[in-house]
Every structure is written in C-alpha cells, then in structure tokens.
C-alpha cells in the first residue's frame, strides 16, 4: 500500500488547474452568486441557531458563540468540499456507470490522486475565507484569544478534518463500484454531513457513538472548534491526525479493492 507520487504528477495537476482557472475566469459573475449563496446559507444557519438558543442557554454544553465557531469551521470545510471534492471525486459514480473511468485509468498517473484533484471550483474557496472569518468573529465575541498552542492545534485538526472528509468521499465513491446504479451517492454524504453542524455532545448517546467512531464526522467540526476555543487540550490534535491517518488508509484500501472489481465500459 505505497502511495507513489512522482514529480510529474504535480506538473500534470498544475497544468489541469491552470486550464481550469482560465475556464472559470470566464464566468466571473459566478463569484458574486457564490458569495451571495454562502452568505444566505450562513444566515439561515445562524438564524436556526438563534431559534434554538431562544429556548435554551446551552446546547450539548456549548454556548451560542462556541457553536458559531463550529459553524465557521463547518463552512470552511464546506468550501473545501464544494471547491475540490464534489467537482472532482464527486463525479466518479457517474463515470463508473458510463464507463468513462476507462479514460482515467489509462493515464500514467495514480488514478485516485488524479480523480480527486483534477478539477477545482475555485470560487467556492471564498467559503473557506468566509467560514474562518465567522469563526474569528465568534472567538472575538467569546472574548477568547487563542494561545499559540491552541492555534496550531486548530490548524492541525482542521487539516485532519479535511482528510477525514476526503476519506468519507473516497469510501462513498468506491461503493459506487458495487452499486453501479447509484449515480447520486453524493446525496448520502450531504445527509450525513448535516449532522456536523452541531457539536456531537448535543446528540443522544447512540448517535454520538456513530459520529465519533463509525462515520467520523465528529472529527470534522466538533474537534477543531474545541481545539480553538480551548474546550479540549491541544494534544487532541495529535489524536485527530491519527484518526485522519487511519481513515485515509482504510479509504485507500477500499478504493484499491473497488478498482479490482471494475471491468470497464465493455464488461
């Protein structure tokens, strides 16, 4: 299970991204639409939260602004998903069905890496900026200035969160090799990821267990937000990195098994 990344892979990706960027730059009005959409989405999330806190003072032990930090993290990760994962690996299920994946497999590059990072929806990176901005504002309202240790723990656990989200996408898309008719399998991700909008401590025990150990979305928002606000000690970031490593290895293994099943357009 080695992951060879030859130098040429980066050159190929860089070329793809350049073309991609040139293409996207033609549709500059989209950046306005994208930002407006994100602002509207963030507003509904904040209003939902305000409605909950109209009737309570804490949710799963978290106060309002702590959860807003979490929403900021959620939004930043949504940006990564919409900019990189959905336009790239998110297209895989359809390609397995139509057999277009053949065109990818004959390329002399690592198929997983190529499929994952071939396309960027650059405008959606604004979500990352807006999300981190929201988290920063919420920290300010909390009156909490994170220490250097907390900031670096946040950085590491946020990177780990991105890896976990990526691993979940790889697993889902690999399942498409077995359930070929399910072109909309990404919907399953959207459904599960909804649960990451609130701290896992707010959920009943069984659901919490599910989100921490089986479908590890607790590691995508709850843990980075906790590291940033000091709710958890900075060492949690190392655990998060470990979880991300395991998730990535498992996803890679499943991807390999799935590829062995694939028989191409003619099969």
């Amino acid at each position, binding site marked *: 299970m080695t992951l060879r990344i030859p130098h040429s892979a980066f050159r190929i990706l860089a070329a793809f991204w350049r073309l991609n960027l040139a293409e996207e730059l033609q549709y500059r009005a989209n950046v306005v639409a994208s930002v407006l959409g994100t602002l509207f989405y963030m507003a*509904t999330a904040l209003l939902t939260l305000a409605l909950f806190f109209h009737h309570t003072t804490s949710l799963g032990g978290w106060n309002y602004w702590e959860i807003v930090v979490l929403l900021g993290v959620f939004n930043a990760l949504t940006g990564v998903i919409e900019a990189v994962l959905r336009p790239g690996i998110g297209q895989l299920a359809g390609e397995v069905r139509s057999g277009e994946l053949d065109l990818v497999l004959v390329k002399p590059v690592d198929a997983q890496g190529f499929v994952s990072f071939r396309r960027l929806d650059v405008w959606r990176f604004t979500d990352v900026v807006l999300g981190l901005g929201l988290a920063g504002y919420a920290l300010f309202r909390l009156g909490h200035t994170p220490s250097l240790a907390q900031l670096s723990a946040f950085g590491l656990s946020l990177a780990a969160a991105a890896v976990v989200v990526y691993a979940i996408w790889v697993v889902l898309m690999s399942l498409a090799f077995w359930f070929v*008719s399910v072109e909309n399998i990404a*919907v399953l991700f959207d459904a599960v990821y*909804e649960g990451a909008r609130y701290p896992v401590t707010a959920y009943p025990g069984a659901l919490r267990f599910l989100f921490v150990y089986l479908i590890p979305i607790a590691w995508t928002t709850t843990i980075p937000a906790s590291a940033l606000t000091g709710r958890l000690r900075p060492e949690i970031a190392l655990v998060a990195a470990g979880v991300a490593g395991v998730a990535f290895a498992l996803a890679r293994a499943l991807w390999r098994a799935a590829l062995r099943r694939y028989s191409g357009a003619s099969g």
Partner: protein
Amino acid sequence: MIKRYAALIRNAWLVDLQYRASIVLWLLWGVTEPAIALGIWWAIAGDGSVAGYARADFARYFFAVMLINQLTIAWDSWYLDRWIREGELNYRLARPLHPAHEAVAENIAYKARTASVILVVWLVVAVAWPAVRLPFDPGRWAVTAVAVLLAAAMRFFISFTTGLLAFWTTRATAIMDLHAGVSLFLAGRIAPLALLPPAVAGVAGVLWFRSMLAFPVDVLTGAVHGTDAIVRGLAAQLVWLGVWVGAYRLAWIRGLRRYGAVGG
C-alpha cells in the same frame, strides 16, 4: 382523462423502479433534516418542555414532518429549468397533452412509493417507541388527507411556476433554493411555528408558508383542533392555491410567448 393519467402514472412508476437505490438515497436525505432537528429539540427539551412541547410532542411533530414533507415536496422547478434551458420542452409541447400532466403523474408515482416507505417505518418505530404513536382518530386523518392534498397541489404550482422563470433567467433554481431557505423557518421544517417569535409565526400564517407544511402537520398531531381553526386553515390553503394557480397561468402564457427553444 383517467385512462391517460393511469398510463402516465404507470409509466412514471416503472421509470422510478429502475432507480430504486437512487430514490432510497433521496428519501434518506429528506428525513435527515427533521431527524437532526428532532435530536436537537430532544436535547433542549430535556425532562421539561419548550413552549408546551415535551420530548414526545417533538417526536410526533417531526415524524409528521418527515411524512408530510415527503408527500408535498415538488422537484418540478429543477425539471422545468432543464426542459426549458436544454429544449426538452419542445417535444412535450408537441404532444396533445399539457406537460404539467406528466409532472403531476410523476409526483403521484414518486410520492406513493416514498411516503409509503416512511409510513411503514413510522408504524414499525411506533411499535417499539410509544412517543411517536398517534391516537386513533379517523376524522382527524381524513382532514389531514385533505390538507395534505391542498398543500401538495400548492407546492406543485409553486415549484412549477418558479421553474417557468427559466424562460427569463438562468437562476430559476437559485430562486427555488431561496424559497426553500425561507420555508425552513416559515413552513415549520426546523421547529413548530408555535416556537418561533410571534411576529415571524404571524408572517408565516399570512403568507402561504404555513399552508405548505405546518398546517397539515399540526392537524395530524392534533396541535390544530376545533372546527373553527381547521376551517380557517383550509380556507387559507384554498386561497393561496388559487393565487399560485393564477401565477402559474400568467407565467405559462407569457413564458411560451417568449420561448424560442434551442435551435429555434
């Protein structure tokens, strides 16, 4: 007409049959939002109650939302948007049958399949979990059926009309998303309207949002009771259904006049 509809529904049912797994995924996606809202309100209510809603009331409310939202939801704006942009509307216009009938038949076939799944799941859950049991009350169920029918018809015309905006703009589905975002609160998807600030709940009642979902849900759970309240709710549904049918007529006639299809 009945024979035509039978054929259309049969056709839509068989098409859906090919995409069973996909439909299950959409179904899962549809019930996640109320399930998560239930989880959060469950935690907030604790052993007490929120504005008169205890845990069991929230459970009944959101199970009813899952069922009735599935029964009344309409995806037609996305279809219309594609039909218009890609010219798929052309051959539909050439048929001796208004394209809306095909859309209605698809809605019936899709909802019959998905809502019955939710209903069966609800019954199974109710065996183990008393909180989600509803009292046996055929009269209330009959009124609910009427309210659901009116809500489904109205949401169909909202969706269809918004889809028709694709005659004028490429962002018709974005408008539908905006409407969905507002209805998250005003239609009662995230919380019973009784839990919203009174002014917001008032707006929901004056506009069409309460009629879309919250009213039939409240009839089913018993939160709305008494002849007076039920008659007023049904009347509001009828009025707004009329308004949206009118909006649809206007958009259809004006839009077709504008329409120069792909290649046209």
